[in-house]
């Protein structure tokens, strides 16, 4: 079984989906001969041809809109937005069309499209290349928002997203693209959507996180384990619809929860998780829920990026506070 990094796993899943299902087409800027600026679509153009791997003009709104039209016709378009910094022009299409084509036609038409985009900071990228806009997208009813946190989950979740009958925004943590490798079997097996992944179990504390912050959170959990504190780490994976049960169950057991994300604190998806706990696990909570998140500031340029992104130390400090609370 090949050891793949996350972007290779994405590439593998795309190739697999295209090979298995002739309805799958890939479109986006530079996805063709260039293979995508991160190489996520590398080799697809040569293998599947220009009919199915389509270099688009530079127009994100239309990329999303064209995908809506294709999807309504029964294709399975997988559109790439080169960076989430450029995903905003697609929001109109996502809110007003993709997410509601099924409901507005009572199921006559549907929109099985995937919008992939590299997301998040930490790679010293240029301005507008490091943001984490997942909460804006996850607030859209009728849409799914999925963020993988490992090569294997990227492979399985992307296959699931592509075969899902409804629209999915699939945000790939840029920082993870080449950060870790793991064996990924090209078995065509999808992983379940709408389910969290419990990455480790411990009875003292629940961490809830997603995307690249899984790294820092797991590292923090390891450090705590070294001191005899056992933490559960939950990777949301699908942010919306939320796997409420798994989170609430875990916190009912541990009584303590730290939520970790890169996006700005206020209105970040961590708010939704914390709200669920305030609503459904209040009596079990032994300590305040703490969110470790980006600040409510614009993402700084690379030289100050490290001050913005939550690191292991901030996660640990939050864990301390929650653990010490009595």
């Amino acid at each position, binding site marked *: 079984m090949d050891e793949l990094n996350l972007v290779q796993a994405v590439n593998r899943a795309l190739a697999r989906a295209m090979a298995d299902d002739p309805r799958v087409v890939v479109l986006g800027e530079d996805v063709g001969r260039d293979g995508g600026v991160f190489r996520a679509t590398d080799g697809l153009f040569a293998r599947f041809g220009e009919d199915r791997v389509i270099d688009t003009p530079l127009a994100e*709104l*239309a990329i999303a809109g064209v995908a809506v039209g294709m999807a309504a016709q029964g294709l399975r378009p997988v559109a790439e937005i080169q960076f989430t910094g450029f995903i905003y022009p697609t929001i109109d299409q996502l809110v007003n069309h993709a997410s509601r084509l099924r409901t507005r036609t*009572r*199921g006559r038409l549907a929109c099985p499209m995937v919008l992939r985009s590299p997301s998040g900071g930490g790679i010293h990228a240029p301005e507008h290349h490091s943001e984490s806009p997942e909460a804006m997208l996850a607030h859209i009813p009728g849409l799914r928002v999925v963020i993988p946190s490992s090569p294997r989950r990227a492979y399985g979740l992307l296959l699931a997203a592509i075969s899902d009958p409804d629209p999915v925004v699939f945000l790939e943590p840029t920082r993870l693209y080449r950060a870790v490798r793991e064996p990924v079997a090209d078995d065509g097996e999808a992983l379940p959507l709408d389910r969290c992944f419990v990455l480790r179990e411990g009875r003292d504390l629940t961490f809830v996180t997603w995307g690249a912050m899984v790294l820092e959170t797991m590292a923090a959990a390891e450090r705590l384990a070294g001191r005899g504190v056992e933490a559960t780490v939950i990777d949301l994976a699908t942010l919306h619809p939320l796997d409420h049960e798994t989170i609430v169950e875990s916190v009912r057991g541990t009584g303590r929860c730290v939520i970790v994300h890169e996006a700005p604190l206020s209105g970040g998806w961590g708010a939704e998780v914390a709200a669920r706990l305030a609503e459904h696990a209040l009596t079990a909570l032994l300590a305040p829920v703490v969110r470790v998140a980006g600040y409510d500031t614009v993402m700084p340029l690379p030289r100050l990026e490290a001050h913005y992104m939550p690191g292991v130390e901030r996660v640990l400090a939050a864990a301390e506070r929650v653990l010490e609370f009595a």
Partner: protein
Amino acid sequence: MTGTGSPSIPFTRCIGPDGAAVGDLPDFARNPAELVRLYRALVLTRSFDAKAVALQRTGRLGTFASSLGQEAVSVGAAAAMRPEDVFLPSFREQGGQLWRGVTPLELLLYWGGDERGSDFKAAREDFPVCVPVGSHAPHAVGVAMAFKLRREKRVAVCVLGDGATSKGDVAEALNMAGVWKAPSVFVINNNRWAISVPVARQTAAATLAQKAVAAGIPGEQVDGNDVVAVRAVVERALARARAGDGPSLIEALTYRLGDHTTADDASRYRDDAEVSAHWPEEPIARLRHHLATVAGWDKAQEERVLEETAALLERAAEAYLATAPQPAATVFDFTYAALPAELAAQRRQALEGS
């Protein structure tokens, strides 16, 4: 009305405001039965609009956009299409929708605030009404690319307003359609107004057909009050698209004789005199004059059409008013193909009324 274009933008008219043919008519227009079919469709559209406005005025329908005076644009476009083509209308193209088999009942349901109105029993691949102006233009490109990929000889037809031509969505869509030769036809219903904004304040372009130049695709103007011309021009564009020669942009010149919608009061911003000046060019009288000349269309025939149409719409209105709202649960049931656990819980709560 004459074309407003520069010499390089062709302008087509087949039947003048007086009903007289201008040059050779296209084949279909030499067949009186076919002309009568078009005529009935125009009348149905105008009568439907009147019915809908009446329902709205009496509080039984939501805000509604009549197509008064512009019926020939979407009827002509739809009449040029094959059933297997896909129609992507804006919110003022009920004429074309009716031609394609969408029922008056469905239209009333939609404008009455019921999603079932977009679950067309015929024309199942046609798009529902698009309210966000111009945002359906990229869909047409996507639909067309699906046809192209599957090697189907089908075409996507998108109708949009003059105001829509200012939206980036439309520019992006035309450009993509052009570079990919997507089998598609974009028809602009240039009714000269976007709510209170006249086309001269919408763009400095002398014609809207020339928006095509930016995309490197053919653009032309047609007399949008001449259903024969609209159909002929759209038929040619469809043939081109079907032959693999890519998209076209057609500007149909017409005029919005009514308010923007039932929520609008056009007297705030435009002169009655301007409106009156456009009445002599409206599409129905024009075709009626033509039919009288070429096929002896008489008062009796006219009355029969009006009666049949009225009866049909009366039945539709009754059926509409008799349609109970959907069960509350349907708020949830079409959000996703299958109800996620999350939403199942909300649905339960909602039905329990808590």
